[in-house]
């Protein structure tokens, strides 16, 4: 309680102690009924519900694609070294692998590892950018399905949330 003065460093530490975190941690999702949508609209029946409930990379990939992945240097994963805010982390994935048919992105330290999965039909480029929530510092894994096989690339993203910034 007794706050001695007054250097920015000291007070900074005080602020950090009380810093709020983006709050992605804890309880499980309730299972919610999914409605079938009319044709020519986003089709909820396609949603890989179970894959989004897995807590490990291997389990999520098994649910999603039924196979395991090997590292590849033909995937580019553009993510910040240090995220300015864990609530909005820009992540861009692209690949030069042939016949890419799917891209997925996983945040290993999140409660559920799978963040997003994309279907890439023929004629669409193997490249996607999005913004993700990260609970804490974590390895981010990009997965690309190419010619029936799975490949990955990963990068560590540091997540900290500070006090009187901005």
């Amino acid at each position, binding site marked *: 309680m007794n706050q001695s003065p007054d250097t920015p460093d000291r007070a900074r530490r005080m602020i950090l102690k009380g810093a709020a975190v983006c709050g992605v941690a804890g309880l499980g999702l*309730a299972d*919610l009924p999914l409605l079938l*949508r009319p044709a020519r*609209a986003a089709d909820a029946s396609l949603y890989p519900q179970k894959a989004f409930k897995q807590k490990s990379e291997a389990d999520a990939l098994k649910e999603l694609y039924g196979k395991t992945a090997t590292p590849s240097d033909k995937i580019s994963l553009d993510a910040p070294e240090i995220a300015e805010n864990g609530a*909005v982390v820009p992540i861009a994935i692209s690949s030069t692998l042939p016949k890419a048919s799917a891209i997925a992105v996983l945040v290993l330290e999140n409660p559920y590892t799978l963040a997003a999965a994309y279907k890439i*039909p023929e004629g669409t*480029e193997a490249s*996607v*950018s999005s913004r993700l929530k990260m609970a804490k510092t974590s390895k981010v894994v990009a997965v690309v399905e190419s010619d029936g096989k799975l490949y990955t690339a990963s990068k560590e993203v540091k997540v900290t949330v500070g006090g009187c910034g901005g």
Partner: protein
Amino acid sequence: MASTIRVRASANGDTTEVQSLIRHPMDSGFVKDKSGKLIPPHHIDVVQFEHGGKTVFTAFWGPAVSKDPYLKFSFKGGKKGDDLKVSWVDNKGETDSLTAKIR
């Protein structure tokens, strides 16, 4: 009520670059409100982009996608003036859709 969807699609040569932003809370189900109660999960599950009667991109999202989610991808075959249809459905069964012109 304005659409929840904003799209920018621009054709450049044979490639159309699509950027979209959707207004949605994307509640993860892990965050508490001011009174300490968990805010139930409420997030978009599926986003679909269609061009010329064909699905050109499908996104499946979990609770880890940011609020007001953003997406960028590119596909081949779009021309200026073509329609691009975007639609989404969330875990509560809410949906929205929008048809935009490729510029």
